[in-house]
């Protein structure tokens, strides 16, 4: 039987989409569906785990094994799933509140652990599902429902944080450029280890259409520059562009291959443990109690 080629359509579901018209997440959804179709990942081998938030509804809209879990915890859930079944392609999705506020601890430790996951953060710089409160990436001074006199806090820089923590694939995309984002996702999936793709995915309802304009006006595609993604120091410079140059870097900021993944580490632990002792049967564990 000839294999039928999978197309983006094969990754659609019947679940009604609840996002607002103009939401950036539509672009992310399209980019994911096109990326997995390009890579011909069978839907049953694809896992999509999310947390809570507007963007975390995304697993429902992808024909895969989808898990819309609890606030801030998609990374540990996906890590456990990937360890249990390493053959799955695991996408993790969520928003800036989910990943960079309530789930920050897991973000930090997922990078340290390096599971082979592709983490797509739809960063809209606002809490949308709860209708417009300040988020960890909201710019200083911005008025939101919970910062009526302007946001007094500095936004978190997820790219710099990931770089500092030793992430081996760090990219930034824009939901207004699906084609470009699709490539970042494909490369993230192909990357062995933890891949962070921060996607500027505007919330038109609570931050207005000008969010799109901001990225369009200030976005700089790294592939159009002489940026070398294997150069950590150069990547560090790029993570600061928003502050230093009022520019939004788009593309792969940093990528190195060859670091052991969590699966590699677990396999080595198993090997070392078995080198010390092998049991033919569970019941042999009893010997240590004699």
């Amino acid at each position, binding site marked *: 039987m000839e294999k039928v080629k999978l197309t983006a359509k094969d990754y659609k579901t019947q679940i009604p989409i609840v996002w607002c018209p103009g939401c950036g997440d539509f672009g992310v959804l399209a980019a994911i569906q096109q990326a997995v179709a390009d890579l011909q990942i069978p*839907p049953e081998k694809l896992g999509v785990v999310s947390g809570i938030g507007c963007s975390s509804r995304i697993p429902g809209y992808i024909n895969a094994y989808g898990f*819309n879990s609890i606030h801030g915890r998609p990374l540990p859930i996906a890590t456990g799933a*990937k360890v249990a079944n390493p053959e799955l392609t695991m996408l993790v999705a969520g928003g800036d509140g989910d990943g960079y506020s309530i789930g920050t601890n897991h973000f930090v430790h997922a990078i340290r652990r390096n599971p082979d996951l592709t983490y797509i953060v739809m960063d809209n710089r606002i809490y949308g599902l709860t209708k417009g409160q300040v988020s960890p990436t909201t710019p200083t001074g911005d008025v939101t429902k919970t910062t009526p006199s302007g946001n007094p806090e500095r936004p978190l820089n997820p790219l710099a944080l990931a770089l500092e923590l030793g992430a081996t694939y760090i990219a930034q995309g824009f939901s207004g450029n699906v084609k470009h984002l699709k490539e970042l996702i494909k490369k993230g999936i192909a990357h062995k280890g933890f891949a962070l793709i921060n996607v500027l995915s505007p919330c038109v309802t609570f931050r207005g259409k000008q969010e799109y304009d901001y990225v369009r006006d200030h976005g700089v595609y790294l592939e159009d520059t002489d940026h070398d993604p294997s150069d950590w120091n150069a990547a560090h410079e790029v993570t600061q562009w928003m502050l230093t140059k009022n520019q939004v870097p788009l593309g792969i900021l940093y990528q190195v291959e060859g670091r052991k993944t969590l699966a590699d580490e677990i396999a080595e632990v*198993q090997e070392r443990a078995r080198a010390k002792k092998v*049991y033919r049967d569970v019941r042999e*564990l009893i010997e240590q109690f004699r």
Partner: protein
Amino acid sequence: MQEVVLAIAGSGGDGVITAGDFITKSAARKGLYAFMLKSYGPQIRGGESSARIRVSAEPIYSQGDYVDVLAVFSWKDFKRFTDEIEVRENAVVLYDDADKTPLEAVPIPPEKKARFVGVPFKRLASEELKVPLAKNMVLLGVLARLLNLPIDALKDSVMQKFGRKRPEAAEVNIKAIDLGARWVEENLPEGIPYRLEAEGGEPKLVMTGNDALAFGAIHAGVKFYSGYPITPASPILEFLARELPRFGGAVIQTEDELAAAAMAIGASWAGARAMTASSGPGISLKQEAIGLAAMAEIPLVVVNVQRTGPSTGIPSKTEQADLFQAIGGTHGDAPRVVLAPADVEDNFQVAVEAFYLAEKYQLPVYILSDQFVAERSETVDEAVLFARERAIARKLPSEAELGEEYARYKLTEDGVSPMAVPGMKGGQHYISGLEHNEKGWPSSSGTLHQVMSEKRARKLPLIAEEAGFVRIYGDGDAELAVLAWGSSKGAVREAVERARKQGMKVKAIVPQLLFPVPARALDEALKGVERALVVELSFTAQFYRYLRAFYDGLPKETYSYARAGGNPLRVDEVLAAIAEHYGKKVEA
């Protein structure tokens, strides 16, 4: 004597626990029954520690209320344990004569009429062996000779521990044991009244409850474990970290308790048998994830090795006050199962049962262990461990059920729906913590919420009917029944035995399954019983109140004996409560 209770107190470096372990191991080798309770001060190194060991020719279920023979390396260290170690009247107290505290000043009341014997533990070890650290082994020799403990088995245990790896240590330790024994022959030729006269039986195993639980989990096929260090649950994490990789499993020490619960859920969702463990404070943190497992119907085993609470409480001490949390924790009407191991070997079986129920019914299953039943060492019969077989399996969809129409939460008679696991072709679906329809699609319909709440709850009566979850000890025609759970079983069972010897018709009823209430089995057990007494280590009598609220079959006259934890229940306090409610005076 058929049994002896001894206690050793000293500071961390004195080797108190090691000595206790050797006594317990050697008793097991000889086929005797042994029970050892460790206790520590809050310091990690160099603090006070005590070992309390009961050795008997007959089965024993508790730590023994009073200590027959006490050995003290330093009175200052012993002082910390006066709350826990009470000597019997006419007890024998061996103390290191290097400690010059006048005997009038030691914390043992004169009315105990204890016999004090100064022994040069430290001097013998330093001067004769030139190894001051071996004083605990000198003590072992003294105790073995005085109490008629199996000295050959003791030496075998030493050889087993040091023989191959550190032969010189083995030699010194064996010399130290001989030295202690000789000191008794030369200085106490008349011996002491506490001499164990017991023939041993078949050799037994020695394990802690935590190890038994972790072993049971491996036996049940656990393949993924995630946990965060916490007293007194860490030994489960340590055991599995050492052994599970040898069975192709994975152990991850997570960044926090939230991640530990979430990772186990992820692994289970992907098809692996998964478990996480903690103690009260960590279980509080896991609540949200446990609700997710209930809503998304994902098998999950959660161990709570209870310690004294609330909040940080007393981390190293036991209590049974997390029952309400287990049955009612996390928001919403979330179905779950609560199991409780009642002794060390029961930890093994309960682990197997937990996986059996979690996988069969696709819900979170708590194992409510506690510090007392988890950290103590006990002799265990090998045959008992594997006595109950369980076929552990998850209901998967058939070929016909897969495809476009596959419904993850299909309404079924038993509430259990076929669960497609990632990787299964045609089983793709979406799940969430949101209320959902049969296909998993989110819904805000109150009508659907009622339907799905009923679906999830349909499993519970079936679980309550599962056989073999209520243990009964004592008279078939008992007038009074003592209801207890978890580690209270030991003192209750012995108290019931003693009450029966005094002519009372009593029995103990110990459910291994707490939630859902195994009502039919309890009804059966309570048939003909006039009065019931609910015994527990919870200041607010959680078990008593739980039974009152969730079970209709209690006798009209049902009483409560409940106190705060910290110290485990003693047989005499339970016996006094039985006697009070039985309506007869106990003959002294």
